[in-house]
């Protein structure tokens, strides 16, 4: 019975740790498949985390908080889109600036909200949570956002490979010149992809401040945006590998806490490295086939598009 409890606890913790990576990662996957490299994921997640938190505390409704967070992420992505797609600024530099801006701006608007306690989404939905048996308690920690993150990989996979819109998205990311010659509106499609990426990053950030932690503190995303970005690249832009990578990262993060709890005689710094190391090693091993990489990598990634007649 005890083992089952631990197994359930680890499973639930893994899913919860993977959720922000899945949400932000799949948003970025769509963005990059359209040929745009947005390095501002971390910044957009932070904006989502702070706006989502403030919105939830102010209105009392986590649903409104989550929606506001998605809007905040999309708004920041819109800034990125205007700069890189309309004004053709360099995508790498603009993305980095977006992250720096997000870190600073979220800290600024969140400064008077630090330390305010908040019910997690799960406890909000299930008020009698603490009276349930431990396994039920654990399972109830899987709130609707976690279940959404479970669905997202399947939806995105189906969208990319089975729908016409997904085909157009891949085509634009593969060669914007050819797509343009065929009469597709490259810039409009890229704007939509960038906005989707922003909204998903905002949602991922809000999940951290509303359910995972749940509280607001400065820079609380703590590099998860960068991990999501790295996962997208290491997964060679394949939804299945991205989902796998996110889960693996979540699992090793949790396992590392368990190992520390078991009194394993390893430096905590080495243990803290483990999730990164394990994820990168596994994804590099499964994606080292050069032909496959060439097939999946969006060939136009990061290249600006200008429709010259």
């Amino acid at each position, binding site marked *: 019975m005890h083992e089952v409890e631990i197994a359930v606890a680890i499973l639930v913790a893994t899913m919860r740790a993977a959720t922000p990576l899945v949400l932000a990662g799949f948003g970025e996957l769509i963005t990059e498949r359209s040929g745009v490299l947005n390095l501002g994921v971390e910044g957009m997640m932070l904006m989502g985390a702070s706006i989502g938190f403030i919105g939830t505390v102010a209105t009392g409704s986590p649903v409104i908080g989550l929606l506001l967070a998605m809007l905040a992420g999309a708004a920041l992505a819109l800034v990125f889109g205007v700069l890189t797609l309309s004004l053709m600024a360099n995508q790498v530099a603009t993305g980095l600036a977006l992250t720096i801006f997000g870190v600073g701006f979220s800290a600024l608007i969140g400064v008077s909200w630090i330390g305010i306690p908040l019910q997690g989404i799960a406890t909000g939905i299930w008020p009698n949570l603490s009276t349930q048996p431990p396994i039920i308690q654990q399972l109830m920690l899987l709130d609707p956002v976690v279940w959404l993150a479970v669905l997202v990989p399947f939806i995105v996979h189906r969208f990319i490979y089975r729908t*016409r819109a997904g*085909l157009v998205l891949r*085509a634009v990311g*593969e*060669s914007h010149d*050819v797509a343009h*010659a065929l009469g*597709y509106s490259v810039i409009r499609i890229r704007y939509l992809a960038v906005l989707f990426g922003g909204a998903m990053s905002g949602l991922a950030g809000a999940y951290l401040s509303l359910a995972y932690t749940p509280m607001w503190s400065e820079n609380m995303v703590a590099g998860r945006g960068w991990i999501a970005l790295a996962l997208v690249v290491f997964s060679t832009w394949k939804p299945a590998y991205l989902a796998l990578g996110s889960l693996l990262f979540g699992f090793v993060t949790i396992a590392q806490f368990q190992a520390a709890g078991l009194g394993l005689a390893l430096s905590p710094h080495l243990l803290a490295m483990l999730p990164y190391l394990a994820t990168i090693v596994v994804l590099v091993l499964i994606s080292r086939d050069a032909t496959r990489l*060439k097939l999946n990598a969006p060939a136009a990634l990061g290249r600006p598009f200008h429709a010259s*007649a």
Partner: protein
Amino acid sequence: MASPPPRLRLTGIVKRYASTLANDGVNLTVGPGEIHALLGENGAGKSTLVKIIYGVARPDAGTIEWEGQPVTIADPNAARRLGVGMVFQHFSLFESLTVAENIALGLGATGSIAELTARIQDVSRRYGLAVEPGRHVHHLSVGERQRVEIVRCLLQSPRLLIMDEPTSVLTPQEAEGLFGVLRRLSAEGCSVLYISHKLEEIKALCENATVLRGGRLAGGCDPRVATEQQMAEMMIGGALPVAHRPAPLREGKPCLEVSKLTMESDEPFGTTLRDISLQLRDGQIIGIAGVAGNGQKELLGALAGERRTPDAAAVKVCGTDAGHMGPTARRKLGLSFIPEERLGRGAVAEFPLTENGLLTAYPHGFVRAGLIRTGAVQKYAAGIIKRFAVKASGIDARGSSLSGGNMQKFIVGREIGTNPRVLLAAHPTWGVDIGAAIAIRQALMDLAAAGSGVLVVSEDLAELFEICDFIAVLSGGRLSPPKPTRQTTVEEVGLLMGGRMAAQEMAHGV
């Protein structure tokens, strides 16, 4: 009874780009079911005119009538709705997608991939255009890619099909298959606008021609009646220069020797070179004929030094073992190389002509104490532009601003300007217009007459027979023994090329 209105009538089309008039008062009329040739040298305004018809560019003045009705074509979608289909010179396919996905993207929303696959197979059978819907485009040969483009157009039941230099990438057999398809379309009532500067093809295929020169209408003719000479002179606006071969030197010293060169290709679908031997002497021009993909790329790489040979003595430049040397060391021995791709390997698109001239010529007195002698470099570039009549806005023009033929003339000039002992030329006149091609051939012959050895790899048999002393054939990675040009015939060379082509044809079912 009145005859039906023309399928397409353009009147007084004007299109201006920045400082140049790309089209200036051009008229064009294509009748129903007519195969109409659009002729002109590079930069004559053919591409601009086609872009206007396909809705990629908009004319500054002039009217377009489609089947008697005035229309404006705002974008490619509008053109396709009218019934205009286009097969691009540089294929507009997505490498990482399958054939069916590519075709779906060109069609607009219509049903599932499975339905589409059935329609593709139907059209493919009806016109004898073998395509496999499930394959990824990056696996396909150029001929197969072109068939995909054509099938994509045919699925839209076009009433005007535009073909932009369709045969420049095809083997003679594939080209013949294409003509069959076009004649059949014409018989079914679809008009074809055929852009090319291969005049023999136009004579064989087209029933009417419009000739452009410098953005203006130079005239029209019936290619079935007009001679190639007449059409060529209409295109260049003057008498056609004739290349002539200066008397070759007798028995020079060997300047490039290849002995028993055997080498695996380092590309997954490349050709392995097998036991290749060849001796090029000073003052000789040797031509290597063959269909691309039979080891040309691999052989040129091994000779130019892009790939080192396992045995250093397998390649000798001017008597020195050079197989282990890289390109720069071989250039120092006196070997120059004109690669097949102009921009990317022969020159840098973003660089001005001065810097492109410096790229390979730098060891010849253009650098002093590690610093570039700007004045000398500028003079060198200006000299090339003058000697080869390169059309460019000046020595600071970027590589990408020149047309293919003019860039090629500049590259040839750059390599010849350093007085190489050996010159390797890969497809030197590919995609180059007539005037420039003659100038390039003349330059190669003059170089040989001055005592250098020249090795020309080309698919153009007429060209090889015109300029070479010896012709060898590369087929399946093996090189036939060079034969004196006067003792061989096009048929004999064709047969040597054929061994592998026959098999390809069977596979394609053309």
